[in-house]
C-alpha cells in the first residue's frame, strides 16, 4: 500500500506517495530526492538523520513519514540561502568541525534547533543539543566551539 505524503520541505510544498509505514528518512531521500539527509543506523540511536519537523529536531529514521504530512520539514538542503551559508555552516568551516562529514548535516540541524530557540546558549546547552548525535571523527570539541561561535555571531535568522 502507498500513502500520500505532503510536506513543506525547506519552504517548498512537495508531495509524493510512499510505502505505508515508511520512515521520514527514507521518504526524504527516496521520494523527495533530498540526499543531504544521511542515515546512520535506522534505529534512532545515532542522530545522523536529524531534521526539523515543525521546527523541532526529530530523528527522521524513526519518524513515521505520514505523521509529518502537512507539516514543515527542514533539512540541511534548506539551510543555505542562495550563495550565502548559514552562520552555523560558516562556523563549522572556520572551526574545522567536520572530518568525514557524514554526521555533519544532522549536527547542523541539531544545532539549528538549539539556536532557533536559544540564541545565547551556554556550553552545557550546546552539549545537550548535540548529545544525541554521534560523531566518530572530531571528538566533539570543534563542533561545540563552532556552535558557540555561530551563536556569538548571531546565527538566529528568520527561516
Amino acid at each position, binding site marked *: 500500500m502507498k500513502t500520500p505524503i505532503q510536506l513543506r520541505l525547506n519552504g517548498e510544498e512537495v508531495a509524493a506517495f510512499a510505502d505505508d509505514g515508511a520512515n521520514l528518512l527514507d521518504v526524504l531521500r527516496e521520494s523527495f530526492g533530498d540526499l*543531504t*539527509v544521511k542515515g546512520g543506523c535506522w534505529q534512532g540511536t545515532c542522530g545522523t538523520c536529524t531534521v526539523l519537523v515543525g521546527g523541532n529536531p526529530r530523528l527522521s529514521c524513526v519518524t513515521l513519514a505520514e505523521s509529518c504530512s502537512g507539516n514543515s520539514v527542514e533539512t*540541511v*538542503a534548506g539551510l543555505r540561502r542562495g550563495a550565502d551559508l548559514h552562520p552555523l555552516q560558516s562556523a563549522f568551516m572556520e572551526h574545522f568541525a567536520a572530518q568525514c562529514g*557524514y554526521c555533519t548535516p544532522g549536527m547542523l540541524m541539531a544545532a539549528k534547533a538549539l539556536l532557533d530557540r536559544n540564541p545565547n546558549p551556554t556550553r552545557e546547552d550546546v552539549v545537550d543539543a548535540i548529545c544525541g548525535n554521534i560523531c566518530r571523527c572530531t571528538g566533539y570539541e570543534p563542533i561545540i566551539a563552532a556552535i558557540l561561535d555561530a551563536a556569538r555571531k548571531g546565527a538566529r535568522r528568520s527561516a
Partner: protein
Amino acid sequence: MLEMRKDIFADERDDDLREVGRPTQRQDILGHVTGTSAYYDDHRFANLLHLKVLRSPHAHARIRSIDDAAASRAPGVKRIIRGADVPVNLNTLLSLIQFGKDDEPSLATDTVRYKGEPILAVVATSERAAREALELVRISYDSLPAVFDVEEALKPGAVPVNPAYPKNTFDYHGKYDHQKLRFGDVEAAFAKADMVLEERYQMSPIEHAPTETNGSIAVPDTNGRFTVYTSTQALFFSLDTSAKINAMPSNQLHFVGGTVGGGFGGKVDTLTEPLAILAARLTGAPVRYRLSRHEEMQFGSPRGAERIYIKDGLMRDGRIVARKVRAYFDSGAYTRLSSYAVVKCVAHIPGPYTIPNVHADVYCVFTNRTPATAMRGFGVTALDFALECQMDKGAVAIGMDPLEFRMLNAYRDGDMKAHRRVAKNCALIECAQVAAEKAQWPLREEFRRMSSRKGGGEARPEVVADRSRAPAPAGTPRSPASTPQRVAYDRPQVDAKPPPSPPRDVPSPAGAPPSGSTHGVRRFSSIFGTRRR
C-alpha cells in the same frame, strides 16, 4: 589549543614553504557543511535491488540442510544466492600480496565458524522484502563445540576452527605457528637483572563504528562492465578482491568511491562489494548491499582482541636490560588481516626503547568469533597499552619518575633496534620534554637537557633512582613486592649508582655478540651494520 614548536629541530627543516604548513581549509568542507558530499549511497538508480544476507545463529555448526523454497517465492524476491553460486567461494584478503592461504568463503556452504557468518543472500525489490524473505529460510544445523579463548585454542585437542589452519594458528614462513623476534640473550639478562617484572595484559575487541556503515551499490554498466559505488577505504584492494571472487577480469569493474563516512580500518575488508557485483550480474539490475547498524556492530570485523605477556629485566639504575613478550592476536574464524598485524606487532617490540635483549613470540590465533581486521593503530594499540603500563610498573618497581624512566631508556639516533635496523630521526625524548614542560611535570635538569640526536645531545646521564618520585599514589605501600627479586630490590636505593656509561658511538669489534649481558648502557649502532634489504 594547538601550539607548533618550530624551534625544536629547526635546523633539520626548511620553513620557507608557501602552501605546506598553512591551515588551508579542507577541499571538501563546503560539500560537508551543505550535505552535498556524495557518499556511495548518494547515487540513485531506477529499479535498485537490495541484498541482505542470512547469518548463522551459531558460533560453530555444520549445515545439514538449507531450504530456501519459500523464500524464493516470497514477494519481491528476485534471486537467492548460495555459496555454490559464488564463482570463487574461498579467499583471503592478503592473497593480493601472496600472504596466507585462501580460507574464507563469501557464503558458508557446509560449516559456519562464527555467529553471524553469511550463509545465503536474498536479492529483492526492497530491503524489507529481503528481510521478510530471510525469515522464511529454514536451515538445520548440527551444533559443534566452539572455542573462544586464544590460549584454549592452542591447547592440544582444541576444536579446530579453520580448516586451512588446523592447529588454530596462522603459518609463518611455512614452519612456525608464530612470528619470532630474537635479539641478544634475554635469559642471560634476566639472570643478571636486579629485578624481573612479569605481567599479563588483555584487550577486548573494539568496533570501528563509523557513522556510515559498510556498503556498496553494483550497477551493470554498458559494454558488460559493472560500476561499483563503494565505502571502501582501499579502492583497488576491494576491486581486485571482488574480481577474484567473481572470476572477472579486473577491467570489467569500475570502482567509484573516495568520499567515505569514516572508516578507522573497518572498511578495508571488502565485506559487501563481491556479493553486490555477483547479484547485479545474476539479476541484471543495480544492487545495493548495505550493512545495518546491528550488522556493523556485531558482524562487521572489529579490531581483534589481544593478550600480551611481558617480562622485563630491570637494573636498579633504571635501565631495562631484557624484555620478553608473548602475544596472541584473536583473529576470529578467518585470517583477514590479523596475520599481518602480528608482524607489525613484532616489529614494534620492544617499543620506542633501546633494550639490548629482546625476545618475542607472537601468534595469530583462530577462534569462533567474528573475524578481526585492521583498526587505527593496527597491531600496535594493545601492545602500546601493555608496554606503557609495563613501563609505569617498572618505574614504580625501581622507584623512578615514570617519565624519566622512559627517557632514560628511550631510543635515540644510532641505536640498534630489536629488528636489527638502526634508529634514526627519533624524537621521543623531545616529545617527553615538551609535554612535561606544558603539564608542569617536573623533570630533573639532566633530563631536560637530553636529546634524541646522535650522541644524545650530551652523554646519557648517570642517573640515581629517586624513589620519592615514583608514581605510587598517596597512602599506597611503596613496595609493590610480588616477586622475590622485587622484595630484594625494595630496600632504599639512595646509594645505588649505575656503572659508568661507556662512551656512545664507539664501534664494538665486528662480529661481537650482542652485549646485553653486561650492565653498562650499550649502543649497538655498529654491531649488526645496516643490513637493509
